[in-house]
């Protein structure tokens, strides 16, 4: 058997999960929450992670839903990524989220992987944290003291680290509607289809009378978390649209990156170059998609 031994629990209700997490914490037992397991299981098999206990959320069927609440899409954390991918509601209301989902792993991974898991995993090269910041998602978290909501911008703290306490569970992700006419783009470059991105960007903006308004540009795969690129946004904000400006924005964003990761897949310089190109492409695509 590949993983190191652990105790396994699959409580029937959310309150049982939280109570169990609290008890394990009090007993000083290193516990991990198991959702889809598509990141955790490899870590267990490679013994990168050796928790003493796993708390499986698989019986919490009431965390599996996609519903419209006014202008907001509310998605249960245990909804599979394929269900999000296949949802006509997501395709119609949040095409950026649909596009990002199509880039997460492969179908076989998305069939098992939970929507919420990519948020709590907080891999800086993964798609959902960038989509979350671009779309101002809000995360609903339940713990011993009840429920709280965290803005995506505050949820991702650093590499693989979130605002979630060890006794808390992410239960729902709330995706507010984009203002009518908003253009969007979601771009990434990976060595192979389905791999983590070497770099990627999410872009949203509006166009009013030929002028760019409220641009939001988020890069991922190039730092400890997905991050907004205000330097790139400032270049295009309130300006008339042209492709030279998009390239200028790309270079401004790339230059402002503090420390792009450098590894066997791509050097820091190459990642900077990818960001510059992807920002320009993303802006052009978002403008083309905006209704103005």
């Amino acid at each position, binding site marked *: *058997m*590949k993983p190191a*031994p*652990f105790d396994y629990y699959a409580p029937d209700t959310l309150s049982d999960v939280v109570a169990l997490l609290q008890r394990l914490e009090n007993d000083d037992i290193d516990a991990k929450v198991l959702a889809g*397991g*598509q990141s955790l*299981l490899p870590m267990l098999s490679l013994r990168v992670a050796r928790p003493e206990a796993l708390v499986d959320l698989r019986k919490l069927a009431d965390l599996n839903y996609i519903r419209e609440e006014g202008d907001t899409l509310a998605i249960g954390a245990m909804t599979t990524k394929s269900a999000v991918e296949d949802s006509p509601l997501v395709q119609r209301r949040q095409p950026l989220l649909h596009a990002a989902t199509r880039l997460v792993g492969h179908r*076989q991974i998305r069939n*098992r992987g939970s929507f919420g898991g990519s948020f709590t995993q907080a891999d800086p090269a993964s798609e959902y944290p960038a989509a979350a910041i671009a779309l101002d998602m809000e995360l609903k978290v339940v713990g011993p003291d009840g429920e709280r909501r965290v803005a995506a911008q505050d949820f991702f703290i650093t590499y693989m680290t979130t605002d979630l306490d060890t006794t808390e569970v992410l239960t729902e992700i709330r995706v507010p509607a984009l203002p009518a006419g908003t253009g969007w783009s979601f771009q990434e470059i990976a060595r192979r*289809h389905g791999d983590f991105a070497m770099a990627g960007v999410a872009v949203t903006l509006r166009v009013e009378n030929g002028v760019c308004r409220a641009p939001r540009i988020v890069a991922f795969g190039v730092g400890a978390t997905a991050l907004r690129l205000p330097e790139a946004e400032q270049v295009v904000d309130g300006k008339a649209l042209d492709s030279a400006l998009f390239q200028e924005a790309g270079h401004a964003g790339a230059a402002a990156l503090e420390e792009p990761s450098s590894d066997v897949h791509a050097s820091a310089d190459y990642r900077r170059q990818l960001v510059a190109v992807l920002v320009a492409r993303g802006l052009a695509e978002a403008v083309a998609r905006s209704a103005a």
Partner: protein
Amino acid sequence: MTTRHQISVTVNGVNYQREVDARLTLADFVRHDLSLGGTHVGCEHGVCGACTILVNGASMRSCLMLAVQADGAELTTVEGLSRNGELHPVQQAFIDRHGLQCGFCTPGFLISTAELLQGNPNPSDDEIADALGGHLCRCTGYQSILESVQLAAQMMREGTIVDAASPAEA
């Protein structure tokens, strides 16, 4: 006792009850506890796709699930594709178009192909590449696999061989 668990799973229409270690992967459970060796184990951390099986009708990597998580589930492994000695059209097409050489990756490709064609009887080459992108093959160069899937789709559309992909019957 939380490290040993009693589970009940239906695999290819047969119900099995077993006691398993919490840390046993579903892939190892199927191979060692149920002696269904058709499911191959390659990388054991979710990269190669060889161990793909259907769980409640959806393709998943059995090395990325614990056996205990499959409690109550209906599974289809590659052994469950054929019916009454008749190969599944996907299997026949992989033979006819040389969609395999060493055969190690093949069970995974067959399972994902069966799932794809059940939902999309007439896929484009791009759709096939997208559906099978999570499978590695080191022999064929993939072209003959693409052709195999196209042939299987044609055979199933024309009803040359009756579809046996649905895990519910048997």
